[in-house]
């Protein structure tokens, strides 16, 4: 996999120099762009790139008074020493940014060396433009010599060129050159896919939502518009069998209104990583996959602001440095649905008391004590609310009547301290805590609960030798929930078509209770390189769940072997465990005697770097689930039992293209995901998608224009046929009589999303306008079936029609 910034752990070296020889010890007061620096076994024997030849540079033409300007670039030095993929990290505006991008490719470097072998490395390089000095008065000399124009100090270690004139060359700014070499550590999982900051908000069809962007990666199932409120469907696993974390801590709620938009502003994210299977012992309590969203640090060069207005929502964000070692960012967002909701409501259905509206906010503060210790504090939260009053009970389900209202909010406070103790020990300590509260009323049914959760992690990386690194850690999830609930009892999470029955046909339960969830875990993982290009990763994780009083121990193993510099074989096998959902243990409608359920995961594959910025991969996987929690027939006591199995197998083909002017993702997964409930026959998983193809391409035309497309083709979701209905005299509704579960499939789904963007760059700010069109050719994709009240008639229900989203964004 291509080596890029943003991987944890990132190995980096701070280098400050104003001499030709790079590799000098770092200066203590370098205001360097941040990267955790670690000297792991992969980096021991690492020699960073050295500047060999700086290009001739010149101060660009500017409007107004010339002034110094610094542009911090991220560049890749390939194994031949060539500069590729330059990107502006902290710009100085035009024309400096463009000039810097143009100039840097002419620089020549000696490549980084690892164990004596040239390797690509990504570094940061700050180009400082110094305005030309005014021409001195010509001296009454026979041969007046015009002083040379002052060059933009390349801030390079190369000795400045001396002109044969009386004018001395300006000394390079001591702080103008800094290079932070981030040599990406090989991943600790066989498979890791990532979407970087640059692409996160620009993938067509995702409405700029980073968590939705994950659906373009291989192994991730398609979900309909606002259909899934939880983690994505990863390699045939239920949403709640996977986890989404933000800087390592679970997010209480992922989306507004059950799947409309994620609660965290994507412009504050640096990267989203997907571990579809065989993930590290660092993660536990799930049997599916892991999505790790990483926030970026606030920018440190100057004040920045952003304001975006779109049809769906608006947000504002500001970030700025505070002194030399601290920076902050704050953002807030509000939806626009309520402004038009009234106009969309059919007449005589309900009165809108409070239209649906959502808010979210994020704040962060980063302080670098020194180059070894960094503290990051975050606060974020979300609030969704709506209230309607029905004129009459709903025709399809009279339980929807009178007042229908809902409110949910959470707040999270998160602290992360990363430290480096000498060259051999790194430490990461995280704490995240906050309240959550929700209430909902539908006619006579209602729930309200409040809770507090705490997530803590402490982990250490110890570099025992050049070949050996040991990672150990502890994490814990603690939650208290106090709630009142009057409503239908929870059904089996998946594979039970009766969840679609009207609420009026279901007997309600009443419960008031306080729950305590305590789930501590510990893990250890060894990184061993018997030879440089072969990584072995045995690991083990132990978890305890207070609710089930059960311990589980999960051994895991993965390996990566570099056949060549560009070809890597990989594989993994391991055990994974997941405790039952907390409500499945409440004895009023659950079973306190449930046990955790388990999964065996295996995978094997190959990665190939075809060219710089272009990689392909092929991988096969097999998963076996057992001790699954399933419901009892009709929801009779004990309501839930550990009597289910699952098997998931398939292959993924992936391709990633990332260069300066374009990016693209191709993902095709061929798979089958099946379940067996109790002693019944094997059946398809609710979201089994035999074929899943996603193709994304985006091109930067220059002059601020860019455009992209995303095409999706998937097998239709399975569905359970309805054979008829049985009248329920208690509710005056009909209960569906079902055929075999998931025994037929909807038509193939296909959709094209388009996105076009134009950016106007001004001196200190830029303005961007974008248009995104979801379902551009208005495909009539079947997303469900509508039935008459007695199930004697049916027709297909189509999903989202063509949907434009227009937005405008100003950035300072």
């Amino acid at each position: 996999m291509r080596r890029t910034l943003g991987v944890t752990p990132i190995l980096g070296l701070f280098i400050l120099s104003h001499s030709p020889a790079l590799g000098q010890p770092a200066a203590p007061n370098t205001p360097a762009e941040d990267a955790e620096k670690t000297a792991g076994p992969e980096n021991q024997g690492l020699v960073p790139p050295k500047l060999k030849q700086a290009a001739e540079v010149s101060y660009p033409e500017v409007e107004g008074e010339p002034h110094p300007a610094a542009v911090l670039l991220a560049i890749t030095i390939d194994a031949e020493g060539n500069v590729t993929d330059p990107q502006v990290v902290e710009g100085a505006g035009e024309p400096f940014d463009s000039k810097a991008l143009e100039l840097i490719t002419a620089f020549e470097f000696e490549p980084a060396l690892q164990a004596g072998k040239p390797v690509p490395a990504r570094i940061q390089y700050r180009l400082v433009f110094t305005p030309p000095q005014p021409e001195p008065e010509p001296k009454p000399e026979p041969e007046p010599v015009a002083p040379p124009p002052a060059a933009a100090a390349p801030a390079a270690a190369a000795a400045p060129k001396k002109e044969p004139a009386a004018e001395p060359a300006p000394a390079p700014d001591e702080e103008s050159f800094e290079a932070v070499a981030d040599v990406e550590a090989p991943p600790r999982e066989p498979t890791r896919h990532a979407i970087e900051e640059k692409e996160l908000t620009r993938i067509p069809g995702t409405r700029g939502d980073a968590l939705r962007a994950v659906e373009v990666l291989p192994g991730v199932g398609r979900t309909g518009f606002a259909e899934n409120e939880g983690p994505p469907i990863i390699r045939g696993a239920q949403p709640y069998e996977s986890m989404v974390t933000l800087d390592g801590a679970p997010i209480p709620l992922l989306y507004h209104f059950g799947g409309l938009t994620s609660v965290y502003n994507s412009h504050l994210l640096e990267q989203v990583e997907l571990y579809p299977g065989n993930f590290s012992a660092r993660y536990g309590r799930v049997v599916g996959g892991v999505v790790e969203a990483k926030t970026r640090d606030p920018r440190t060069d100057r004040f920045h602001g952003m304001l975006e207005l779109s049809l769906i929502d608006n947000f504002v964000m500001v970030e700025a440095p505070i002194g030399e070692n601290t920076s902050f960012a704050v953002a807030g967002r509000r939806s626009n649905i309520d402004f038009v909701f009234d106009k969309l409501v059919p007449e005589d259905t309900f009165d809108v008391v409070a239209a649906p509206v959502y808010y979210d906010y994020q704040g962060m503060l980063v302080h670098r004590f020194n180059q070894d210790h960094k503290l990051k504090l975050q606060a974020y939260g979300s609030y969704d609310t709506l209230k309607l009053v029905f004129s009459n009970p709903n025709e399809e389900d009279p339980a929807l009547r009178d007042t229908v209202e809902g409110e949910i909010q959470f707040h999270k406070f998160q602290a992360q301290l990363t430290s480096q103790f000498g060259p051999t020990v790194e430490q990461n300590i995280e704490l995240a805590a906050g309240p959550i509260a929700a209430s909902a009323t539908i006619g006579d049914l209602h729930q309200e609960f409040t809770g507090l959760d705490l997530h803590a992690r402490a982990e250490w990386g110890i570099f025992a030798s050049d070949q050996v690194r040991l990672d150990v850690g502890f994490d814990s999830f603690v939650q208290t929930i106090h709630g009142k609930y009057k409503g239908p009892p929870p059904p089996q999470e998946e594979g039970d078509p009766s969840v679609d029955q009207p609420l009026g046909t279901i007997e309600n339960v009443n419960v008031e209770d306080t729950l305590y969830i305590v789930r501590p875990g510990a893990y250890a993982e060894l990184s061993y390189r018997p030879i440089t290009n072969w990584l072995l990763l045995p690991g083990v994780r132990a978890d305890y769940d207070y609710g089930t009083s059960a311990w589980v121990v999960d051994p895991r193993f993965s390996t990566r072997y570099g056949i060549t510099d560009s070809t890597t074989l990989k594989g993994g096998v391991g055990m994974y465990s997941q405790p039952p959902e907390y409500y499945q243990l409440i004895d009023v409608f659950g079973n306190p005697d449930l046990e955790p359920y388990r999964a065996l995961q295996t995978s094997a594959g190959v990665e190939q770097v075809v060219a710089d910025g272009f990689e392909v991969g092929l991988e096969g996987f097999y998963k076996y689930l057992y001790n699954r929690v399933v419901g009892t027939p009709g929801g009779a006591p004990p309501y839930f039992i550990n009597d289910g199995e699952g098997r998931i197998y398939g292959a993924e083909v992936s391709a990633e293209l990332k260069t300066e002017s374009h990016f693209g993702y191709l993902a095709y997964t061929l798979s089958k995901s099946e379940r067996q409930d109790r002693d019944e026959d094997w059946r398809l998983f609710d979201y089994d998608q035999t074929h899943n193809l996603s193709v994304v391409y985006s091109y930067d035309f220059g002059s601020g224009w860019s455009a992209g497309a995303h095409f999706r083709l998937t097998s239709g979701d399975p569905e359970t046929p309805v054979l008829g209905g049985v009248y329920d005299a208690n509710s005056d509704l009909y209960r569906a009589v079902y055929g075999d579960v998931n025994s037929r499939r909807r038509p193939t789904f296909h959709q094209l999303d388009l996105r076009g963007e134009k950016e106007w760059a001004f001196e200190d700010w830029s303005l961007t306008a974008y248009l995104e069109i979801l379902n551009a050719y208005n495909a009539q994709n079947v997303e469900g079936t509508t039935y008459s009240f007695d199930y004697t008639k049916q027709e297909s229900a189509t999903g989202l029609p063509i949907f434009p989203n227009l937005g405008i964004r100003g950035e300072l």
Partner: protein
Amino acid sequence: MNRNLFMSTVLAISAVGCGDPLKEGQRIEELRVLGASISIDGEPGRATPAAGESANVEWLLADPSGLPAQAIWSMTVCVAESTTFGVPICRDEPLASVEQSEPSDAAPSIAFSVPDASELGDAKKLAVLAIFCDSGTIEVGSDLDSTTCHGADTIQKASFDIFLASGDTANDNPNLDDAVLEIDGETWEAGSTVVDCATDEVPRLPADGQEHDVRLVLGEGVRELKPADEVDDAAPESLQISQLSTLGKFDSRFSGVDPEDSNLSVEMPWTAPGEIDSASPVSFYFVVRDDRGGVSWLTRTACVEP
């Protein structure tokens, strides 16, 4: 929680008003089952029998002709498993069974005795499982799923849960003794179920597609006070009213009286058919349900004239 109420709230919004229904439930276009009600020997108003008591369940059927429905049927009563959703499942052998194999316009009913407490165990409810057909031959299977009518045009399978009295908790059927129905401001008395539009004194409504005000005024004693439970304080029952007709159309299929409602007058606009060949009887059904298994109903007739 999968069936998270908040998500249901969101989904409720998206489900409302999405296109025309495939069939309108407030119109009776074929043989329909409209409800069932239990009466206990010696206490006919109570809906929750106790162990050892005898009771009778009667069904309300309707026919699009407006006349009493002619049907064949078969039904059983059994002690039910403590399921919370889906068609009830019998725990034991049936307590009683009855079959009507020749078409009849009598109200289908079944009498039974509730087992004593030792036999009931921890059972919380009984179930009546029934099949109604407009014609044909009934084949009774091992369960409702395998029971059918051969040669029938319309088959209706139905279930009715009977909640057993527990401790001091009992529930009555909604009391409609003092209920008054009005149509266009005039009191609407119950008449014969078999109407002769040439001679009978019933409301006469022109087939002009116009809307008529139908109002159900419930008496103060229509509902009880529900006892407090783990979640809620004591509060009046909520009532769900199903309104149906054999001609024309009510604006909505359901009306409701919520716990906090003090106004027990329920308006149900009804629109007459646009045209009709000759004067025809039309039957109206108003089925009132509380939220604890109690059911009562009122029926009215009228004539629609060209």
